[in-house]
């Protein structure tokens, strides 16, 4: 039944968006996670990827959270000679997480999540009105 297919497609979308929120939450939480050994690498920012997967049973393209990639951009350094992770010159490598970018990503994930919720509620309303034919 097509209405149930619509709800399933939207539910997969919800799942993908909440997975994306989890990755964003990891990034924000680890925005200051440096290494513990001198000269080591700090937390590297994670990037969620999406891909469309054709579901053979329904013929619809569902969205799926693909493998979580790592942001290859360079680490910034800060001068902190007393830090356990400081190298010989006293510089500590900081994670390549920009809190502003993560906040904007979070807003986008929220908007996509809300859009998928709208689909589900609209489909349920259409289904309810169709079943109302029986009642009158």
């Amino acid at each position, binding site marked *: 039944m097509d209405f149930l297919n619509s709800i399933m497609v*939207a539910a997969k979308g919800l799942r993908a968006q909440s997975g994306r929120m989890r990755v964003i939450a990891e990034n924000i939480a680890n925005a200051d996670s440096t290494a513990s050994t001198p000269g080591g690498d700090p937390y590297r920012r994670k990037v969620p990827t999406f891909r469309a997967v054709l579901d053979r049973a329904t013929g619809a393209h569902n969205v799926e959270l693909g493998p979580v990639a790592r942001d290859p951009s360079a680490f910034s350094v800060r001068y902190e000679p007393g830090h356990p992770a400081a190298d010989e010159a006293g510089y500590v490598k900081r994670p390549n997480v920009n809190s502003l970018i993560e906040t904007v990503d979070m807003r986008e994930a929220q908007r996509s999540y809300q859009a998928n919720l709208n689909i589900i509620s609209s489909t349920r309303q259409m289904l309810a009105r169709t079943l109302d034919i029986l009642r009158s």
Partner: protein
Amino acid sequence: MLTDLPLFAALKHKMRWHEARQTVLAQNVSNADTPGYEARDLSAPDFGSMLGAARARVTSAAYVQPARTNAMHMTGRLSAGGMTQEAIDTFETTPKGNTVVLEEEMMRLADNQMQHQMAVGLYQKGLGLLRMALGRGR
């Protein structure tokens, strides 16, 4: 038996078309961040010809039967269901190739829902007319 009447056959097909469109719109919204995904919509069916075919006593209003003007012509079915997906023209493509605009999808969703409700309402009124003709009142 009810769907032999052209009104109910056409309304039933219209409702099914809106259900199918709901799935396509759900796909679009769900894939709003997938790179390379192109937004799709169902092509608008021609309800006028569907009604004409229904009047010509085709068993299912989902098919448009070509008219035979000569007994030597072959019969055949033109299209199966008349519901084909097509990529829509959009004015915004992200650098990753995703063409879904959420605001447009929400508008299409609202339009789809309203039209479906209208079809459902007309169906109910049609049933009411039949009941009145049968003498059962409301």
